[in-house]
């Protein structure tokens, strides 16, 4: 076989080029720790590793969400612990009324309860990073808003409905329902169901002569009329309490006495009732994505928040119940129907509230446990993906060093053998 003289040089150059390329690659691998830096070096591995990387960043975000959820749950749990102290105290107080005999005792208890109301409001309106914990999805607004008495106000019950001094009106003749009209505060005749102005009288059952006729505008919808005729359907059609006054007819036969009670000086500045501005619909509860296909709602549920609202308003009712005595003393001739519950009635309610708060604490405790488990699952998934990426892309350092060493030895060998072969030719021996 003929071997042309430039074959040595060409072959050596080619070989040195290949070895150089190997060395550069191996050196690059050692310095980066990766066996693959371009997708064409191992497309399948790169595809898997990139998808893993995407998955890893998703898990990291979910882990961050989980951390935030944990914080929210911890704060909420701690807040409920404080509420529990309040509900326990109120329950105990409600059960210990035997020693209360004088007006001053009731006044002191009312003031004490009032303090508890204020405290409960502060606790329940707790925030984390600017978000209210017990507002459902409406986390940027104060969830439990206290409506306070101002001078000139009339008394309302714990639900915000007016308290009336009631008078009985006994018609001397049968009252034709057509003669009972509903008039709004502007003096316009309104439809009992829609509250809109109308010329048609409402269709009501006749009121027999000699029947005590009491209209309780401030009563719950379940009992509009106490004398056996239920007008709740008529009145539940949208007419807000306190905004409709009654005129009865025929004129002069009877007049229902529905006078509002002016607020006492003691009550000015006090919480009259508490309103909830948060969301209630379970569909609106704020959820965080915390894992593959899983999410949690770390904020207190809207429905539960309503129960906390009941607790707060029952605290108001408790205070008002303590004050009932004072109110009666100030207006001895008036029968009051405040719609508020008595202390005895409230005792049972507070037991329920204790349960509600306790369940809330338990719920957040369980949530925290769930968060812990999810976090461990996330960590495990992340580590598995990291191992997969490492297997796909990372170098075996020892093996790479060995390969580099081998390439270096081969390079040196190629240089030595090349130079010695190229130096010699027949011309040196002639």
């Amino acid at each position, binding site marked *: 076989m003929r071997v042309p003289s430039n074959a040595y040089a060409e072959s050596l150059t080619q070989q040195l080029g290949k070895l150089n390329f190997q060395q550069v690659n191996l050196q690059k691998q050692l310095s980066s720790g990766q066996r693959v830096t371009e997708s064409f070096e191992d497309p399948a591995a790169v595809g898997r590793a990139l998808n893993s990387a995407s998955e890893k960043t998703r898990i990291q*975000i979910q882990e961050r969400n989980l951390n935030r959820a944990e914080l929210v749950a911890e704060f909420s749990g701690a807040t409920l612990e404080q509420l529990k102290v309040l509900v326990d105290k109120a329950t105990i107080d409600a059960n210990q009324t035997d020693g209360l005999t004088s007006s001053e005792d009731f006044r002191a208890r009312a003031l004490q309860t009032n303090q508890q109301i204020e405290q409960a409001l502060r606790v329940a309106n707790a925030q984390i990073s600017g978000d209210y914990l017990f507002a459902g*999805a409406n*986390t940027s607004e104060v969830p439990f808003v206290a409506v306070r008495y101002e001078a000139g106000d009339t008394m309302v019950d714990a639900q915000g409905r007016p308290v009336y001094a009631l008078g009985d009106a006994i018609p001397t003749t049968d009252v034709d329902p057509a003669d009972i009209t509903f008039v709004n505060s502007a003096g316009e005749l309104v439809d009992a169901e829609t509250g809109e102005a109308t010329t048609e009288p409402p269709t009501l059952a006749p009121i027999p002569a000699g029947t005590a006729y009491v209209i309780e505008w401030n009563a719950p919808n379940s009992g509009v009329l106490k004398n056996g005729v239920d007008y709740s359907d008529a009145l539940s059609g949208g007419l807000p309490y306190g905004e409709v006054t009654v005129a009865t007819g025929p004129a002069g036969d009877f007049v229902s006495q529905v006078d509002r009670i002016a607020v006492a000086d003691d009550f000015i500045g006090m919480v009259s009732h508490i309103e909830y501005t948060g969301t209630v619909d379970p569909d609106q509860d704020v959820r965080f994505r915390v894992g593959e296909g899983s999410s949690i709602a770390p904020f207190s549920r809207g429905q539960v928040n309503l129960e906390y609202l009941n607790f707060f308003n029952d605290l108001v009712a408790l205070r008002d119940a303590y004050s009932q005595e004072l109110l009666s003393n100030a207006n001895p001739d008036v029968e009051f129907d405040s719609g508020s519950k008595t202390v005895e009635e409230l005792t049972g309610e507070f037991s329920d509230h204790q349960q509600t708060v306790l369940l809330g604490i338990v719920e957040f405790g369980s949530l925290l446990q769930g968060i812990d488990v999810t976090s461990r699952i996330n960590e495990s998934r992340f580590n598995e993906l990291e191992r997969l990426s490492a297997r796909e892309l990372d170098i075996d350092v020892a093996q790479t060093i060995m390969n580099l060493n081998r390439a270096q030895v081969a390079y040196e060998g190629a240089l030595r053998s090349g130079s010695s072969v190229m130096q010699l030719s027949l011309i040196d021996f002639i």
Partner: protein
Amino acid sequence: MAGIFSSLNAAASALQTHSRSVQQTGKNIANVNTEGYTRQRLVTGSISSSNGEYKVESGALVALGAQQSRDIFIDRQIVNEIAYLETLETQDFRLRQALANLGDSINRTGEAQFVDDLTESGGGLRGSIDSFFNSFQALASRPNDATTRQVLFQSAEALVDNFRRVDSRFEIMQSELDAQLSVELDSFNQRLAELDQINREISRLEVGQPGAALDLRDQRQLKLEELAEYALIDSKEVPGSNGQIVVNIRSEDGDFVPLIQPGAGVQELYFDQDSGAFRVLGAGTTLDIESGRLPAVAEVRDVYVADIRADLDRLANAVATQVNEVYYQAFVPAGIDPAVPEASFFQMPTPPPSVSGVPSEVTAGSIALYSEPSDPLTVTDFTPLTATSLRTSVTEFKGANDLALLIADIGGQTVAELGGIKMSEFSTRMLTELGQEIEEIQNRKSVQEDVKAILEERRGEIGGVSMDEEVSNLVQYQRAFQASSRYFNVLSEMLETMINSMGR
């Protein structure tokens, strides 16, 4: 005895021939590293002369001419292999450039090793898409947090910017390929003209001496190989044309279209932008150039880069449409209660298809965040997208995150328009498909380099200059020269003896 003068002539001719052989060897040695040089050998022979009645013939050594050690089949094969190798090299180079344009690096050092490490999504498209949807995940847990909203807005801007930048890179690449194609065509036509010139000179020199223009044949072969780098051509010697060749290129019908014909000059090649095909000037035939740099550049531009840009457009459109499908809020004019300003996330020529029924037309080059009404004539009130105007819920509650969650979930959902895979997976697939293409090309290139190396080695074995062989020949010719010289001396002495013995 044969005529002594005849013998002297023969000796002198031998000396001259050996001298030329030495000269030929010297030329071989001198051109040992000349590219395209094929070793030449002096062909010698004896010429006879009869003398006297016995017709004794005396052969004088003469140089009959020079000969090249060339295998035209290997030469043709090398031309083919060069064209194919050049295709692969061009594709390899350009597709790696395309890969770099996508901008998704594989950098494990920046990657989070632990779940609590800082999140790194990478700088490429895939990273931007991940980052965008992850930002919605984060926003869903902090809908009121100004920083989180700002981060999301920035990630949206980065996504839009990335789409546009990547598309712009490919647009520039297509322009570069246009320019390259034009330059390469000029070079090809220039070399064609040079080849035609060499062809003519060979014809002129080889009139009556077939195969005499050896060095020009070397140059012609080199020129053919240079042309093959641009486009696969076919050449063959035309009988009776004093060594000239015809150079052809294949049409899409499989016929040969001549580029150089003896006596007909050069037909230049051009690229017809309208039909997207190569043609020969003056001939309407569409060419089907199988390999070489020219078809490779055209293929990268019109197939690979065009496909990548189409994929980018599909991806951008999918991102914009899917997000807007959830985010879009239709305009309700003032006077209708409640009046609602139009709001969208990405700027689209029309509202999302689900709202308008009109297909959207977002491309990677046009994708933008919502900043103006979709239809300024009918939409008189709108809310441009900013970090603060960003909606996280369809309700009025600021802490609600239903919208943010829905959009975050889009990132994890498969998209029918993208072949039933997730958006970031589509981006990864673009990367890996291109990687696979490059890997395949590099594997073929490696094989092709070996094939070419084997052929060149074989050609070297046949036509390359071996110093050992040339030096050995040199010694051989030197000895022959010495022997002929000695023979000449003997004849000279004989003649002297004869002259001196005369007249005694």
